[in-house]
């Protein structure tokens, strides 16, 4: 099939046997060609030269209506800035993926004179657009973006004022780091004469230098390092040990001894060590603060539901209305591929089909009849469905899950529990040593006793210990991110390392959600190529998603335009191609009475010239690398929960062996199952993809949302896993487990440095220069060790950058 190799000039999809040709370029569909025409008209074809085939396939020919966006309250909520002439809005556009996208969106002003400036934030997949509101309306801007293939994401969430969160990097941390770096560098410079200790000539300047050091040291302590002091004070008040306590103890000791020494004119103090300590600590924090701005880990149902829906008024005309304005009793129309925004009763006489896979985990679309209850969260397939609204969205069946206590649970972001445990022994340990040293020296010389006490606190300050964890976890977070597992924050590494039980959802997690294959089961006779071509031709004319799937799967066959096509809502499609009558649709439509169907479930039956030919059936497609998830390989207690009936059990047994499997699980069942495992003191890693897993994901020790397009909606979770990275999951868990060992190695190293320092300190012989050398040396050694060990482990597991694309055949033990 050589023709299959022709790629659409716009989106890069295969064009099939007969591509549309426009301006010497092949296109796969009318939508792609239209985008090209628009861009060509406005002199924007550089779009196609920056990257090859940069476009997105135009999903539907029907353009959604955006008129509801022009309501003043809507503009108020979306706008970030308004002045008398212009309005600035920020749109989230998940389709942004390459440099062409940036270029086109930043030149969008060429498409309309009313659009002024547009600026893309690539990591956040956002574009900030300023437009003159007397020349162009918000709805026009959005529809323009939609027309060129960059539909802004508009859902209940984007109308939420709280959704506009602050920047990717915490600005305060940057300021603190900047101040600490500036002061640290200058204090080091001014302390140099002390290190060299070159006699009496400098005496007069030394005094000036020391005073300057105090001036520079105070902002480091009271601005840059104040968080540590405050957090340890908080720990004391709550009677718990945190790693910040020994740090703050060291900081206070260093500042105190320095002020006293300089004030009394007896020495230079340890301000250089203190500034260095705080600088390194903040550097560790900065390193740890890596976030994935384009991903949202805390989404709730609001991000899934649409912003507007078509509502029918008394006269039977439909207008787009905000979902939040829906009242019980309203009549709404939900079209193909739209999400049912709230619970309601079906009014359409023929009913329709709803895909609940995301909401309940049920794999096959469910047929619904007139008068049946339809729950929020389903996606309508094929014909539009009319509904009578029963409840407001906030009270619908699905959103009730969010009121569960699992959603009230919060973790302390970035806080390592292991480190806090160590800090208990550490704090008690150094206070004991310092106390003993003071007690030993007290009878001899009270000055030396005081000096020994403070210098133990100074030198034992666990800077290296405190930065080892952020650096190791920061490295691991980066390594995992490069391999397709994005962690919400680096403290998740620690919880991931402790996971001993994994629970998988089936639909959308182990199987692919969209790219489902159709399996044709023939009833009798042979389907000739000519017949398949006729089926493809008819299927192409239908808007039903199953028909579209058939059409795309049969793309390679030669088709002729049908002479006649008629779509019967809720039943199927009939057409005549080259004199042959083709029926595609539900059993009662295409299958003559008395013929035994070849299979049950959601399938499209085919009849040609009155003879039943068989059916196309959805076949769940499992993700690559499922075999690697077998408990014998991962050595993890594995469980499978599915919202589906047990139809796939045999297939799953083949992959997973005799593991506990539960079917027909409601979202509440899944949550209860995970909670039961947690009560049995298991560390549960839950993998799920849909709203139906949201409760379980939140409750689990580590909730991992599986997504094929990480910029799209995912339920709230601690981590997001790219669907295609599933095969690497066992190795990534091993990597997380290895992190604990690496942290331990770094801990031992940093403790060794502390021991050396304490050895001198208890004798009252800690010179400032020794402290100034020991502290950065230990920190740098720990940073180096953590880097080397992390990347060596990544290489061993085949997770280093060069290896990420090629899957090693054998899993290293």
């Amino acid at each position, binding site marked *: 099939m050589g023709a299959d190799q022709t790629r659409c000039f716009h989106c890069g999809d295969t064009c099939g046997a007969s591509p549309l040709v426009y*301006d010497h370029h092949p296109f796969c569909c009318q939508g792609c060609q239209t985008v090209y025409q628009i861009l060509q008209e406005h002199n924007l074809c550089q779009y196609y030269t920056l990257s090859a085939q940069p476009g997105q396939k135009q999903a539907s020919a029907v353009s959604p209506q955006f008129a509801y966006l022009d309501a003043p309250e809507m503009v108020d909520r979306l706008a970030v800035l308004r002045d008398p002439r212009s309005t600035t809005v920020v749109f989230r556009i998940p389709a942004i993926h390459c440099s062409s996208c*940036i270029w086109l969106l930043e030149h969008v002003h060429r498409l309309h004179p009313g659009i002024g400036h547009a600026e893309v934030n*690539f990591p956040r997949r956002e574009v900030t657009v300023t437009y003159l509101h007397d020349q162009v309306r918000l709805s026009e801007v959005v529809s323009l973006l939609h027309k060129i293939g960059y539909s802004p994401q508009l859902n209940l969430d984007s109308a939420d004022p709280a959704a506009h969160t602050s920047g990717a990097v915490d*600005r305060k941390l940057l300021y603190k780091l*900047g*101040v600490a770096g500036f002061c640290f560098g200058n204090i080091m*410079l001014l302390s140099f004469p002390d290190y060299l200790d070159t006699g009496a*000539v400098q005496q007069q300047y030394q005094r000036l230098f020391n005073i*300057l050091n105090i001036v520079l040291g105070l902002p480091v302590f009271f601005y840059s390092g104040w968080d540590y002091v405050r957090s340890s004070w908080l720990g004391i008040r709550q009677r718990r040990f945190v790693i910040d306590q020994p740090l703050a103890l060291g900081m206070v000791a260093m500042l105190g001894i320095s002020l006293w020494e300089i004030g009394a004119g007896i020495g230079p103090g340890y301000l250089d060590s203190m500034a260095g300590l705080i600088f390194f600590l903040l550097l560790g924090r900065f390193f740890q603060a890596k976030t994935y701005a384009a991903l949202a880990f805390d989404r709730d149902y609001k991000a899934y539901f649409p912003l507007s829906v078509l509502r029918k008024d008394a006269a039977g005309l439909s207008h787009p209305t905000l979902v939040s304005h829906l009242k019980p009793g309203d009549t709404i129309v939900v079209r193909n591929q739209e999400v049912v925004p709230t619970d309601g009763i079906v009014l359409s006489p023929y009913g329709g089909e709803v895909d609940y896979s995301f909401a309940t985990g049920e794999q096959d679309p469910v047929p619904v009849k007139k008068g049946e209850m339809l729950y929020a969260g389903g996606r309508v397939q094929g014909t539009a469905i009319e509904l009578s609204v029963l409840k407001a969205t906030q009270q619908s069946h699905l959103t009730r899950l969010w009121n569960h206590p699992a959603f009230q649970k919060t973790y302390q972001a970035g806080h390592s529990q292991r480190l806090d445990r160590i800090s208990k022994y550490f704090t008690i340990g150094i206070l004991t040593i310092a106390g003993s040293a003071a007690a030993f020296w007290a009878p001899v010389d009270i000055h030396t006793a005081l000096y020994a006490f403070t210098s133990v606190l100074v030198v034992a300050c666990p800077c290296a210990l405190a930065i080892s964890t952020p650096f190791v976890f920061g490295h691991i977070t980066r390594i995992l991110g490069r391999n397709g597992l994005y962690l919400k924050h680096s403290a998740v590494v620690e919880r991931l390392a402790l996971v001993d039980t994994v629970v998988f959802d089936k639909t959308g997690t182990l199987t692919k959600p969209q790219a489902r294959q159709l399996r044709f089961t023939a009833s009798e006779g042979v389907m000739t190529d000519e017949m398949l071509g006729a089926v493809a031709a008819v299927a192409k004319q239908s808007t039903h998603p199953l028909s579209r799937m058939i059409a795309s799967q049969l793309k390679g066959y030669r088709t002729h335009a049908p002479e006649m096509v008629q779509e019967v809502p809720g039943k199927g499609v009939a057409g005549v191609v080259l004199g042959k009558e083709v029926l595609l649709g539900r059993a009662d439509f295409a299958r003559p009475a008395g013929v035994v169907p070849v299979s049950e479930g959601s399938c499209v039956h085919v009849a040609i010239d009155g003879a039943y030919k068989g059916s196309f059936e959805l076949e769940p497609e499992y993700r690559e690398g499922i075999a690697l998830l077998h408990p014998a390989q991962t050595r993890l207690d594995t469980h499978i929960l599915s919202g589906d009936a047990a139809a796939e059990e045999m297939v799953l047994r083949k992959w997973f062996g005799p593991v506990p499997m539960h079917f027909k699980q409601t979202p509440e069942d899944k949550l209860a199952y995970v909670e039961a495992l947690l009560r049995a003191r298991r560390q549960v890693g839950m993998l799920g993809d849909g709203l139906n897993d949201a409760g379980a994901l939140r409750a689990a020790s580590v909730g991992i949302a599986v997504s094929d397009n990480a910029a799209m909606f995912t339920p709230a979770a601690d981590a997001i896993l790219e669907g295609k990275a599933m095969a690497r999951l066992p190795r990534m868990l091993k990597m997380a487990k290895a992190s604990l060992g690496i942290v331990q190695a770094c801990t031992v190293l940093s403790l060794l440095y502390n021991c050396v320092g304490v050895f001198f300190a208890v004798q009252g012989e800690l010179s400032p220069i020794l402290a100034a050398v020991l502290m950065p040396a230990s920190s740098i050694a720990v940073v180096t060790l953590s880097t080397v060990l992390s990347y060596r482990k990544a290489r061993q597991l085949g997770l280093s950058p060069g290896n990420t694309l090629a899957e090693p055949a054998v899993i290293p033990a």
Partner: protein
Amino acid sequence: MNAISAASSFVRMEVIFLLIGFSLFVALIFLVIFIWNVRSGQYEDTETPAIRMLFDNEPVNPNPHKDE
């Protein structure tokens, strides 16, 4: 001889006050520039400008299909 060298060394060392003040001043300027940069949002998005700067080198009218 001794007095002269002492005096000259005093004069030479005097310059340190000036140098220290100057170096601190220069470093302070850099700190202010850094804070200003953070404030202006330079660290919010470190990726897009790197890509955007490549566009400016393209010809002003890059469309070969149309001659207006």
